[in-house]
């Protein structure tokens, strides 16, 4: 079980073939092998949410997933969501509202917020707080983040209307 294993996956739409140790977690693979350092490591035991990425459309904690489990999957990181423009409005709302200070939780927070906004068109504040409650932020006290997510939901709803 400790010999290197071949793995093929898509990361931000780019086909990746790699040979990795079975024990290598997805967060370390993304950061150390692919040099996509926007996926942050905060606790390495699945509590803080800083390493949140999207695997086949669902958000996961990449520190709790082995790289080999991503065989054949499509992985999306903050760099991918940024470059595709998918969350440009959410990022702008975070900027306007100063919904980030040190920025370390921000990629995971954006991933989780976008996940909520994809599933619920107009979440109220308790719903936003609930959905983000697995992402730790020590700097902001959360209110600005909730404001930014709420504002983005509103503008997206207006755009749809």
């Amino acid at each position, binding site marked *: 079980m400790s010999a290197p294993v071949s793995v093929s996956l898509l990361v931000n739409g780019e086909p990746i073939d790699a040979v990795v*140790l079975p*024990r290598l977690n997805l967060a370390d693979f993304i*950061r150390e092998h692919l040099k*996509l*350092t*926007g*996926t*942050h*490591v*905060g*606790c*390495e*035991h699945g*509590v*803080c949410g*800083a390493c949140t990425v999207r695997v086949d459309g669902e958000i996961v904690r990449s520190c709790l997933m082995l790289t080999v489990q991503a065989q054949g999957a499509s992985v999306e*990181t*903050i*760099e991918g969501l*940024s470059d595709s423009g998918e969350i440009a409005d959410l*990022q702008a709302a*975070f*900027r*306007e*509202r*100063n919904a*980030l*200070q*040190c*920025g*370390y*939780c*921000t*990629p995971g927070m*954006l991933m989780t917020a976008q996940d909520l906004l994809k599933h619920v068109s107009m979440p109220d*504040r308790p719903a*936003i*707080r*609930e959905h*983000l*409650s*697995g*992402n*730790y*932020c*020590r*700097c*902001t*006290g*959360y*209110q*600005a*983040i*909730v404001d930014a997510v709420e504002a983005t939901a509103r503008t997206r709803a207006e755009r749809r209307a």
Partner: protein
Amino acid sequence: MTVTRPPAGMLSVLDRPNSYIGKTVPRPNLDRLLQGRGQYVSDLELPRMAHVVFLRSPYAHAKIVAIDADVAKRMSGVISIVTGRELEAVITPWVGVLSHLKGLKSAPQHAIAVDRACWQGEAVAAIVATSRAAAEDAMEHISVDYEELEAVTDMRTALDPATHVIHPSLGDNLAFERTLNAGDVDHALLGSEVVEADFVFGRHTGVTLEPRAVVADWSAAEGRLTIYQGTQAPHMVQNIAALHLGLREAQVRVICKDVGGSFGIKVHIYADEMATYALSKLLRRPIKFVADRVESFNTDIHARDHRCRGRIGVRPDGTITAFEIDDLTGIGPYSMYPRTSAIEANQVVNLVGGPYLTPNYRARARVVFQNKNVMCQYRAVGHPIACSVTEGLVDLAAARIGMDPVEIRRRNLIADDAYPCASPSGMKFEQLSHHASLAKLLQMMDYDALRAEQAALRAKNVHRGIGIASFIEVTNPSAAFYGVGGAKISSQDGVAVRLDAQGSVICQTSITEQGQGSESLTAQIVGSVLGVSMDRVRVTLGDTDNTPYGGGTWASRGAGIGGEAALQAAKALRQNILDVAAAILQSTPAELDIVTNSIINAGDGAPRMELNELARIVYFRPDTLPPGIQPELMATRHFVPRQYPFAFTNGIQASWLEIDTDTGFVTLLKHWVVEDCGTIINPQLVDEQIRGGVVQGLGAALFEKCIYDERGQLTNANMADYLVPMSGEMPDIDIGHVVSPTRESELGAKGAGEAGTAGAAAAVANAVNDALRPFGTKITEIPLTPQVILTALGRI
């Protein structure tokens, strides 16, 4: 916003057209962080870089008899395994004392333990390997022969004659003691009701989301060490690294880019960081250390582990006649370096009773050694303890005489027109605004309506409480904090500003950024004073080779001290630009102004010349300038407060919460803060500093506690067991301001970074007691866990 007094003088440099001062503008360069393209030390890789992990003592106190690393050394990827004894040849030990804290003592601390480990988590060997995983694999094959020693864990018995002395050379376990006696407490208490309580505070820690991280890169060819570190104080790190590695400061460069949270955790010098610097020198290659989460809990400084007996005297008319405290705190086995671990207790003595009129105050604080992780300065050092004790006592006094908590404060807070004045502990107040802040708070929260709602709900067996806490906050510290005690921690800061060849502005500042907005406030001030738009101002921070010398960002000093240096540097550059412009335009500096990147006529506003044209002439066609003109398109200024040791600020907080008396759970419904930090540079950034600070205080109030067992084992060193505030439990926080600028600077700004943390826990504790008033309970302990509440209610 209430302004208690206008800034000195007439129209200031801040009241210019298109000024950014007092305006909410987004922080520059946030896209980097929003796209996951920040540059944290955790992200850094250098050629030939190796990784270090530390084997740490599993015992709180143990003799290291032997270390056998033979097997580990032969493992794949291992570069070196280094013990404390071996590292001693490269780096000298240190003692964390300051001469102005009279009597403070500590023992020499090594980068890696030599012969003895004094807390669970102290490093006993370093494993350097090509990857962190390889180093961790090897670590499991090192065998250490320990002889467990008696651990001192209870601060209450640390000074007993029967208790083991941790450092025999010191004679006892007392690190520091301070007493203070102002006025006549005994006489004052004679004719008063006296209320007494024991206040207990949980030991907690910062839990920065990015753990401490450092890459040390010794270049044997240059004879120079480059340290990449998430730190609040680069020049302090430079000084300490050089001192203990036997280098000149010029041989050490400290670079600090993005930092994933700090809050005082990253303003100290940790043994494992010192070991990393030394290992780079020893092994002549870059070495990276990033703490994992368990290491963070076991080695990042802890704070606030205090037990404080408090007494207050009150007359039936509500007059507070005296405060008295006896504070005890346990700081771990060493006083932390170089800021020491006596500061928090010292601050408690300085701050208790601070908002109030009574001149009678007696205090004793004792700081003792223990075999637990080290304690030191964390956001709002000492303030939450002083505020919780003071405000807890004030509420108890009010309850004793049957007075409303607001009324007793109204009768005892120092009047807004009584300044300047001093506290019984000698703190000098330039201008505070307790009464204006209280009035504004009551209006924001609609106090009377809340009281009515509380009463109505009580009839339905719903238990809600209102808690109020006034506070004072130390900001803008002068040399009185550290410099006078002999620490090479600068209290002044510098800013260099220059006009580039296209009319943009480059600033270098010695304050640092951990997300507070240091870059933004510097750009706002420089842009406003110069008349240059913010998008043309670029700010460099966090590099000892490329910024002026200065203290950095801590103790709520960045805006007040670094901001004033930026203002003065920009003023000087503006004058230099106008001198050159006058020469080019055959005018006089007084007839010209700079607005929106152009030189204009001051009188009629007519545009005369764009700044980029002026820069082109100065840099590329100086031959066309009149004879004798030597333009200086760069200016540097420094600033340090001299008149007041600290620019005290003040504020008041209120909490509105509900308690489920069956489960003991507290639901925070709303929180209010009114704060006076003087001139506000960016209202949004100030408010967000306060909100973030409040939530750190709410964590302390309800959740956070490092739980040690009797053998000194930290039993909850992970994020699943050590609870921090998450979005689901936190309330919305409303913020208001009163503005009393300091006249010690032209900018008038005081600090705002710690106000939220200072008073939040006190407000919550008072609200919990208010909610439980019908049950006749009195809780003076935080965190206010369900267990604490149910115990007080007699339910468990």
